C-alpha cells in the first residue's frame, strides 16, 4: 500500500528518467567546472585596436519578470557603454565585457549570480538591487569586489569601514529631499501661501524611504500623508480621487511608468493637474512613447550576429547618450548605466586587485572628465506635465575627505515656466 503511495507518481515512477536527470545535471556541472563562461550579450571586442584582456563587469539584474522594466535600462546602458568604449579603444586598450545574468529581482538568485560572475572573472559588479547588495556586504568586503549600485542608501556614499567596496551612483534621499523642496518653493514662486503638497511614491522600499526622508516643505506648506502605490494597484482613479480630494498645491512623486501613466490618465480624467509637480524616477524609467523604438534599436544590437545597419544605429544612440542634453528623453536611462559602467571601469583600473574606495573615487573623477550630460532629466507626462528626473554622481573629495557631488552632474533648475504646456521639440 505505502509502496504504491510513494511509488506511483513523479520521481519514483521515473526511476529510469532519474538516471537521465542525474546524468544531465552531472553534465551541467562538468560544463561549468570546465569553466565555459557564458557568452555575454553585448560584447563586441571584434575591434582590432583592442589589445589587452577584457575587463569583465558582472551585471546581475532582472532581465525578465515584473521587475525587469526597472533593471533592463541599466543593463542596456552598461552594454551601450561597453559598445561605445570598445569602439573608442576600450579602457587603455582593454575591451569591456558585460556579463549579464537574470537575477529576477530575487536576493538569493542575485547573490548566486555575484559568485557565478566573479568565478567567471568579473572584476566588478553593477547591482540593481540594494537588498541584495546589503545582504552581501561582508562577502564583497572579504573578496574586495568593487560594487556599484543604483540604490539610494545614503550610508553607502561616505566610504566607511563597512561599505568601502560599495559605491552608489544616485543621490541619497537625504540630499535629494531639500533640493526638491527648494525646487517646489521656486516653482510655486509668489504663491507660497499655506497648502498641502501631495506626496506619492512607488511602494518599493527605497521609494518609501525617499518619501520618509522628505523633510518639511516649510513656509506654510505641508505634506499630505504619503501614498505609496503598489505597481499591482488595480485602480488609479481612486488614487487620483483621493489626491485631488486633498486639494494639494504641488505634488512630489517617485513612481514607475507603470504607475505614472495610469495615474496621469486618471488625473486628467478628473479635471487634470496644473500645479508644480516633481517626479523622481529610477534609472529604468523612460518616456513611454519613446520606449519601443529605443528598445528596438538595442535589441538589434544585442544579437551577437550584428549587422552593419543595426551597428550604425546603435553607434548613433551611443553618441547621443554620450552628449545628452537635458531635454533628451532617451539619454537619461542610458546615462544611469553609463555612470555605473564608467564608475566601475575606472574603479577596476585604479584598483588592480587591492581595491580601495580611494582608488574608485579618483576613478569617478576621471569619469567626470570623460563624461558629459549625466544629469537630471525631464520628461513630459501624457498630460504634458514636466517631470524632473534626478540623478547625481558623488566623488571622493580628498581635501575635505568626504563624498561630494560632482558639480556638473546635477541640474535641478529648469525654469518654472516649463511646468505647463510642452517643451520645444517634444512630441506629445
Amino acid at each position, binding site marked *: 500500500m505505502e509502496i504504491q503511495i510513494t511509488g506511483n507518481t*513523479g520521481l519514483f515512477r521515473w526511476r529510469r528518467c532519474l538516471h537521465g536527470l542525474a546524468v544531465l545535471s552531472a553534465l551541467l556541472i562538468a560544463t561549468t567546472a570546465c569553466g565555459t563562461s557564458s557568452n555575454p550579450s553585448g560584447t563586441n571586442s571584434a575591434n582590432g585596436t583592442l589589445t589587452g584582456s577584457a575587463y569583465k563587469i558582472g551585471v546581475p539584474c532582472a532581465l525578465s519578470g515584473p521587475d525587469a522594466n526597472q533593471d533592463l535600462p541599466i543593463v542596456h546602458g552598461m552594454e551601450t557603454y561597453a559598445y561605445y568604449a570598445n569602439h573608442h579603444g576600450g579602457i587603455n586598450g582593454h575591451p569591456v565585457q558585460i556579463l549579464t545574468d537574470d537575477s529576477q529581482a530575487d536576493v538569493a538568485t542575485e547573490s548566486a549570480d555575484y559568485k557565478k560572475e566573479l568565478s567567471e572573472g568579473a572584476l566588478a559588479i553593477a547591482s540593481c538591487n540594494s537588498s541584495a547588495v546589503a545582504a552581501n556586504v561582508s562577502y564583497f568586503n572579504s573578496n574586495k569586489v568593487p560594487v556599484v549600485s543604483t540604490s539610494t542608501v545614503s550610508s553607502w556614499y561616505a566610504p566607511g569601514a563597512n561599505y568601502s567596496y560599495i559605491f552608489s551612483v544616485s543621490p541619497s534621499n537625504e540630499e535629494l529631499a531639500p533640493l526638491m523642496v527648494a525646487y517646489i518653493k521656486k516653482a510655486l514662486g509668489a504663491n507660497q501661501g499655506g497648502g498641502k503638497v501631495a506626496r506619492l511614491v512607488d511602494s518599493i522600499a527605497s521609494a518609501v524611504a525617499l518619501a520618509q526622508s522628505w523633510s518639511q516643505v516649510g513656509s506654510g506648506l505641508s505634506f499630505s500623508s504619503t501614498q505609496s502605490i503598489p505597481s499591482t494597484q488595480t485602480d488609479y482613479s481612486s488614487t487620483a480621487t483621493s489626491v485631488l480630494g486633498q486639494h494639494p498645491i504641488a505634488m512630489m512623486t517617485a513612481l514607475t511608468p507603470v504607475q505614472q501613466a495610469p495615474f496621469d490618465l486618471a488625473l486628467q480624467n478628473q479635471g487634470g493637474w496644473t500645479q508644480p509637480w516633481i517626479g523622481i524616477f529610477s534609472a529604468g524609467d523612460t518616456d513611454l512613447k519613446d520606449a519601443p523604438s529605443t528598445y528596438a534599436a538595442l535589441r538589434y544590437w544585442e544579437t551577437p550576429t550584428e549587422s552593419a545597419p543595426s551597428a550604425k544605429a546603435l553607434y548613433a544612440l551611443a553618441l547621443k547618450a554620450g552628449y545628452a542634453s537635458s531635454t533628451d528623453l532617451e539619454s537619461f536611462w542610458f546615462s544611469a548605466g553609463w555612470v555605473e559602467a564608467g564608475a566601475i571601469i575606472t574603479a577596476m583600473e585604479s584598483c588592480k586587485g587591492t581595491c580601495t574606495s580611494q582608488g574608485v573615487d579618483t576613478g569617478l573623477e576621471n569619469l567626470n572628465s570623460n563624461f558629459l550630460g549625466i544629469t537630471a532629466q525631464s520628461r513630459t507626462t501624457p498630460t504634458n506635465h514636466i517631470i524632473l528626473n534626478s540623478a547625481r554622481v558623488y566623488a571622493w573629495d580628498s581635501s575635505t575627505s568626504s563624498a561630494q557631488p560632482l558639480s556638473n552632474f546635477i541640474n535641478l533648475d529648469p525654469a518654472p515656466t516649463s511646468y505647463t504646456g510642452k517643451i520645444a521639440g517634444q512630441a506629445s
Partner: protein
Amino acid sequence: MTVSRRGLKWVLCVLGLTAVVGVCDLSLSSYWLYTVNTGLLLAFGAIALTVLVGRVGLTSMAHVALLAVGGASAAVAAALVSSWALPFGSLIAAIAGTIAGAVAGLAALRLSHFYLALSSLALSYVVLYIFQRVQFNSSHSETGYSASASNIGPWAITGERAWLILLAVLLVIVVVLTRNVLKGYTGRAWMGLRDREIVARAQGINVAREKIIAFAATSAIVSVSGTLSAFHTGTVSVDQYDLSMVFQYYAIIILGGLGSVVGAVVASVLFSVVQAELGNVLTSLPTSMPLSNELSLREGSVIDVLMGLLIVGVLLFSRGRSRSFVPWARTKISVVSTQRFRSYRNAGRCRRGIGST
C-alpha cells in the same frame, strides 16, 4: 519495509552528494555550494508541502507567509541575541509557525481543497501586508533587516561550506523524523484522512486534532526554513517574499512525487542546480536557433515555462494511476485526496451542514 530501504538509499544518496560537493571536492566554487545550499533550503518547505498535500490530503498556499514569518523572527533574533541568533531565531520561528499553522488548521476543519488553498492565500496576503507596513515605517525600509549574524554560540556559520554541513545535518534530521511520523500512527491516520475523511472519522480518528497537528508541524518546518534562508542570504526584506514562490514549491513536490519525502529533497536540489545552470546552457545555444536571443536573455521566463511544463507533464504522466470515480478503484490512486469527481456537491453540502443524502 522496502519503502524504508529505498528511502534510506535516497537519504544516503543525498548525503553522499552533499558530502562530495561540500567536503571532498575543494575545486568547487562557492557559487556551486551556494546553489546546493539554496536547494537544501528549498527542501524543507518542499517536505512540508509534500506531506501536507500528498499524505494528509490538505492544501496550502501559505508558504510565502510562513517563510516571511521565519525571516521576521530571524531579524528579531539577530537584533536581540547576536551570539545565539541562529538557534534563537529558529525557536521563535518554530513557535510562530506552529501558531500560524494551528490557525490555518482551524480553517481546514471547515474548508477543503481550493477553498483551503484560497484561505491560506488570504493569510499570506495579510501577513505580507503587515510585514510591509512594519518594514516601510522602520529605518530598514530600503535594505531590509540585517540577518548576517548567523551564530550558534561560539561558532559562526560563515561560508557556504559551513552552511552546507549545517543544512545537510538539519535536513537529515527532518527527513528521518518525518518518515518516522509517517510510518507511525499519525502517518496512517493522515492517510486515512486523505483517502476518506468520513471513513477515518468512523474509525475513531480524531480528524480535527490530526488536521491541526499536520498544519502546525509542517508550518513550523517552513518557518524555520524561512529563518535559515534569511540567515543564509543575510538580509530580510518584504520584497523578497513573492507569492509566485508557491508554484515553485508545487513544481518541486510534483517532480519529487506527491507524498514522497525523500523525493522532495532530491527534487529540490535538482531544481536548484538546473535553475542555476540553465543560464549557461541558454547562452550557449546556437544563435541560428529561433528565439535564441530571447532564450539567453530571459532566463526567468524560460524557468517559468519549464516549471509549467513540468507540473502539467508529470500530472498527465502519472494520470493513468490516479483516475477513478469509483470507490473500489481507490486503492490504486496514488495522489492526494480521492474525492469523486461529481461528489463535490455532497462534500459541499456536508461542509455547509445542509446534510448529505
